[in-house]
C-alpha cells in the first residue's frame, strides 16, 4: 500500500481552494489550537471556497462565523494567538482591511516587538484578493504593497494549488503573523473560471514550502519577468507567445513578498540583463518599484533594460472594458517585453 500512495498523489489534481482547505484540515487535525474564523466561513464554506467542507468535520467551535466587525474578530484572533492558540482569521475581501487597520498594523504586526518578545502572534490572516470579474473599486484590489510595506508581517501570495498547500502548512506553523493572500480567480470556483495553470498535482501528505523562496516557473535567457498571483499565469502565457517570436523569457513567481527572495531575481537578471516586473497592485510605491530598486542595489551594472507593468493609480473600474484596460493582461506583458528589445 505504501508503494501505491506516491503514484496516486501524482495523478490527482486539485484546485487552489481545495489545496488550501486540505492543508488547513490537516493542521486542525494535528493541532487543537488551530481554528478558523471569518465572515461566512462556516455554513457557506467561504464565499471563495476557502473553507469548503471544514464545518462538517470540525463543527462551529473551530470553524466560526463571526459578526460583521473586522476590528472585533481580528482583535479576538490577535488575543487568541497571544494566548497560545493558532487562529486563522479571514478577511472576506482584502479591501475590508481598512476598518481593522489598527488591529492589523498596530496590534498583530507589532505586539511581539512591543512586548519585548514576551508574547508572539502565531496567526494567519487569510484574505481574498484581486479583480478581473467586475466587482468595482472596493472589492477588486490586491493591496500587495500595502501589506508588504509594514514590518512585522510575513506576506504570502500563492499562484498554484501545489504552492498554496505547502505555503499554507508553513503559514500555520509559523510563530509570527502571516498574511496569506489568495487570488479569487485562481481558486477554481464555478462562477469564476480559473485560467489554465493553478490546478496542479498535489501530494496528499503534508509538506512545507519555505518563505522567501521564489520559484522559476519557466526558464529563459533573454528577459526576466517577475510577478506573483494571477499574473504568474498571464506572464507564462505571454512567455509562450514571445517564444514564437524567438524571445526566451524567464518567469519568476515570488510566492512571498515578505520575506522577499531577491537572490533568485538578481541571479536571473545577471543572465538576461532585462527585467520586467508585473503586478496587479497599483504602480506607485508598490511591488514593481521595490523589485526594480532591489535589483538595482545588487546588480545595477547587469541591468540593461527595465519595464514595469502594473495598475495605473486609479480606482479599479466596474465596467468590464474599463477594468480590462487597467488590469495588466497578456498583451500588456508581451508589449512591455518587446519594447525592451
Amino acid at each position, binding site marked *: 500500500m505504501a508503494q501505491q500512495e506516491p503514484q496516486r498523489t501524482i495523478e*490527482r*489534481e486539485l484546485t487552489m481552494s481545495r489545496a488550501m482547505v486540505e492543508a488547513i484540515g490537516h493542521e486542525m487535525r494535528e493541532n487543537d489550537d488551530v481554528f478558523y474564523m471569518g465572515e461566512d466561513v462556516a455554513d457557506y464554506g467561504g464565499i471563495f471556497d476557502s473553507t469548503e467542507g471544514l464545518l462538517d468535520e470540525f463543527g462551529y467551535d473551530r470553524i466560526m462565523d463571526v459578526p460583521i466587525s473586522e476590528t472585533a474578530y481580528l482583535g479576538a484572533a490577535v488575543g487568541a494567538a497571544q494566548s497560545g492558540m493558532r487562529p486563522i482569521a479571514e478577511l472576506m475581501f482584502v479591501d475590508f482591511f481598512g476598518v481593522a487597520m489598527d488591529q492589523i498594523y498596530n496590534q498583530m504586526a507589532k505586539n511581539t516587538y512591543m512586548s519585548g518578545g514576551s508574547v508572539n502572534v502565531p496567526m494567519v490572516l487569510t484574505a481574498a484578493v484581486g479583480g478581473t470579474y467586475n466587482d468595482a473599486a472596493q472589492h477588486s484590489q490586491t493591496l500587495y504593497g500595502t501589506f508588504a510595506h509594514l514590518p512585522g508581517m510575513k506576506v504570502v501570495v500563492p499562484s498554484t494549488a501545489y504552492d498554496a498547500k505547502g505555503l499554507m502548512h508553513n503559514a500555520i506553523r509559523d510563530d509570527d503573523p502571516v498574511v496569506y493572500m489568495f487570488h479569487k480567480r485562481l481558486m477554481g470556483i464555478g462562477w469564476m473560471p480559473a485560467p489554465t495553470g493553478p*490546478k496542479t498535482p498535489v501530494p496528499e501528505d503534508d509538506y512545507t514550502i519555505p518563505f522567501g523562496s521564489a520559484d522559476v516557473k519557466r526558464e529563459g535567457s533573454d528577459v526576466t519577468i517577475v510577478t506573483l498571483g494571477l499574473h504568474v499565469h498571464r506572464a507564462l502565457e505571454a512567455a509562450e507567445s514571445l517564444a514564437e517570436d524567438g524571445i526566451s523569457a524567464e518567469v519568476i513567481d515570488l510566492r512571498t513578498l515578505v520575506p522577499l527572495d531577491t537572490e533568485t531575481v538578481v541571479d536571473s537578471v545577471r543572465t538576461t540583463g532585462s527585467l520586467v516586473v508585473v503586478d496587479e497592485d497599483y504602480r506607485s510605491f508598490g511591488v514593481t518599484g521595490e523589485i526594480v530598486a532591489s535589483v538595482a542595489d545588487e546588480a545595477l551594472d547587469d541591468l540593461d533594460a527595465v519595464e514595469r507593468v502594473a495598475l495605473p493609480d486609479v480606482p479599479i473600474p466596474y465596467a468590464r472594458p474599463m477594468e480590462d484596460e487597467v488590469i495588466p493582461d497578456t498583451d500588456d506583458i508581451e508589449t512591455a517585453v518587446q519594447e525592451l528589445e
Partner: protein
Amino acid sequence: MSDTTDRVAVTADGEWTADVDEEEGIVVNWFASEGASVSEGDTLCEIQVEKVSIDILAPTDGTIAEIARREDDEFTIGDTLAWIESG
C-alpha cells in the same frame, strides 16, 4: 465501438438530484485525467447545478478510460461524465 463490458459509467446522478429543479448543469473541475488510477470514493470531478457545487465520486476502483464531459461542458442529469475501466 469498443468492448464496454468491463467499463463502469460515472454518471451525473445521486441523492442531490432530489434537491434541484434544473435538469442541466456544467462540469466545473476534473481532478483526475484519463489514464489515472482511482479508488472507489475518490473525488473525480466537481459539477455545478443551480449554482450549487457537487462532487462526483468514483463508483469503483479502476482506471479512467475516457472523460466524456470535460470542464465547461454541459450535461443533463443522468448523463455519463466518464468511464472507469475496473481492475
